[in-house]
């Protein structure tokens, strides 16, 4: 079968699966209009063929041609012991566990959350017309075919709502657990909506882990920041390497809001982060950082679109990749400065550290500017360890291996040092550097 046939068969299979699922185990009736609209969107968008603009560096043939079983919640209850290493002391009593796309209240501990944060399932929250319209609107505007699959098969999700004038002191953690499969591959479609009302602050940690592998976690997350809201987000993709991970983030930033995010990725068969950012209010501030450390044939891809729609906003992007063996990464990022978005300031920087001859790093920073009074720049580097830095350290008595270790960890540290949560930062450093056989100093 040719690639095109494989992909077209995949599309037919998705539509058939949708119809079957509706017959045998109906999806949530309250979300039916979203499901149907999203399936239509899927049929219009179709799985990407070669040279699709949005997937120019990502080969998704594998995903399109695999017959995934849709799963919502685990087949058998999960042993809480499995999770205890992944819950950070700082968020012990404010942790939300989502297992195979379903919010698991028994495994979660939200005892510290008071009435300033509302947690609701989508099933409960969808009665709100504003939310319903928002969700339908994202389905309409969806350009990412995999995110449209999330919408088509969505059964429920979680809404985290921070009420105005609340500063949440300690971090809230979301832990996505995928039980995976020892048999045929499975997929889950979690959706988490985080809304911060006026004058709020939240630190949020989102981590994904898996048990058996052989799964495709295909999530959508929404971050809606009202006036003067601040969100500090740390994400960690730490799924096993026989899994696939896609996440689509819709980020909407109002006046004076601040969104700061650091995403660390271990990589796997295919990880893709898609950020769609709209800066709709003046003086909004975005900081999007990413670090991935790739070994063997692991892949991590980032696709970023930042829309400066209002004047006087600032966006900073810093993406770093450390690649060894046959690892593969790409960053495709475009900042669009809309007409009237004067005094925009925007910086994009991509640094790749290639530690092998067979690694691949694609970079495509891009700017589209429709205003005349702006300050924008972008840059990208691909290189090995700097000979000058290496020599400097050796000339101070450090052995070559020791110096290389120090320089490799320092490359990652410039991103990781932005993380506030100490235990998470320590764990991240240790895990990522261990992958390279390097110890932190």
């Amino acid at each position: 079968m040719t690639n095109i046939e494989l992909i077209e068969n995949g599309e037919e299979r998705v539509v058939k699966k949708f119809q079957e699922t509706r017959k045998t185990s109906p999806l949530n009736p309250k979300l039916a209009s979203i499901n149907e609209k999203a399936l239509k969107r899927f049929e219009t968008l179709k799985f990407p063929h070669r040279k699709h603009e949005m997937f120019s560096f990502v080969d998704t043939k594998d995903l399109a041609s695999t017959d995934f079983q849709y799963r919502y919640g685990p087949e058998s209850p999960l042993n809480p012991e499995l999770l205890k290493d992944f819950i950070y002391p700082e968020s012990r009593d404010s942790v939300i566990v989502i297992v195979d796309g379903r919010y698991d209240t028994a495994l979660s501990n939200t005892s510290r959350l008071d009435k300033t944060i509302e947690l609701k399932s989508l099933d409960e929250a969808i009665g709100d017309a504003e939310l319903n319209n928002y969700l339908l609107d994202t389905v309409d505007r969806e350009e990412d075919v995999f995110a449209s699959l999330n919408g088509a098969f969505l059964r429920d999700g979680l809404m985290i709502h921070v009420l105005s004038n609340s500063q949440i002191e300690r971090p809230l953690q979301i832990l996505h657990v995928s039980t995976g499969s020892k048999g045929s591959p499975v997929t889950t479609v979690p959706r988490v909506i985080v809304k911060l009302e006026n004058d709020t602050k939240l630190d949020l940690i989102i981590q994904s882990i898996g048990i058996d592998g052989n799964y495709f976690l295909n999530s959508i997350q929404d971050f809606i920041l009202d006036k003067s809201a601040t969100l500090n987000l740390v994400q960690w993709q730490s799924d096993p390497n026989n899994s696939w991970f896609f996440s689509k983030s819709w980020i909407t930033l109002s006046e004076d809001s601040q969104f700061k995010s650091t995403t660390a990725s271990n990589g796997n068969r295919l990880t893709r982060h898609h950020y769609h950012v709209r800066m709709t209010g003046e003086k909004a501030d975005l900081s999007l950082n990413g670090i991935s450390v790739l070994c063997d044939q692991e892949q991590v891809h980032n696709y970023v679109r930042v829309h400066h729609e209002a004047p006087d906003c600032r966006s900073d992007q810093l993406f770093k990749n450390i690649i060894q063996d046959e690892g593969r990464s790409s960053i495709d990022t475009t900042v669009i400065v809309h007409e009237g978005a004067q005094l925009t300031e925007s910086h994009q920087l991509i640094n790749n550290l290639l530690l092998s001859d067979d690694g691949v790093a694609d970079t495509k920073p891009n700017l589209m500017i429709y205003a005349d009074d702006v300050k924008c720049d972008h840059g990208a580097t691909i290189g090995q360890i700097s000979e000058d830095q290496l020599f400097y350290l050796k000339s101070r008595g450090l052995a070559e291996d020791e110096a290389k270790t120090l320089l490799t960890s320092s490359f990652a540290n410039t991103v990781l040092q932005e993380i506030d949560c100490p235990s998470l930062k320590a764990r991240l450093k240790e895990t990522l550097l261990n992958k390279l056989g390097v110890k932190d100093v």
Partner: protein
Amino acid sequence: MLEINNLRAGFEGSEILKGISLTVNKGEVHSIMGPNGSGKSTLSKILVGHPSYEVMSGTITYEGKDLLELEAEERAQAGLFLAYQYPVEIPGVNNAEFLRMAYNAKLKKEGKEEVDPLDFDDILNEKMKLLGMDQKYRERSVNDGFSGGEKKKNEILQMAILQPKLTILDEIDSGLDIDALRVVANGINKLVNKDSALIIITHFPRLLEYIEPDYVHVLSEGRIVTSGDKSLAHDLEARGYDHLLAKV
């Protein structure tokens, strides 16, 4: 301590040093002066074993050993230290941690026990005080975003911590204002003793008012054209290189 014999060396195949001989003994301060492009920095890079520079012929003996046989890190561990003209910035590497690693590499070589961050803190504090360095430079990345003057102070801080036997200062005075120069020079003076030696590479004689050399050598077009005591430096200050080079 150091004996350079008829050294010919260069960069990417072109010969820059055209037969240099120089002997430095314990307790001595030598100054190598000369106009831009005379080969001063090449000499310093050759001494510390920079891989981009090549030795074509001649020998260098350091403490009885063939220096050219040693790797850069072995030279450092044997007590050779170069304070760079342009110190390299290393973002993401904490300065205090880097200094501790360098210090421990030396202790390890000497067969001594390595120090932990707490004990090292005391050592670092004392040396930073000596150079009038702000505490903030311990937590920042190595030379990253440092002003020219702070980078030079950071070089001397490394010298203070590693206590080398033979120190080469490559244009340590460039980028320093007069007050910073005085602080740095005083620091260096406190660090040299009868068992160590110093080679000062500079093209401005001003530094030599603060650190007095026993010998002054003038390098031109890859050769030492004249040597003398510190009065040679005064002569240069008054009349310039052209006058001197025209004479020889």
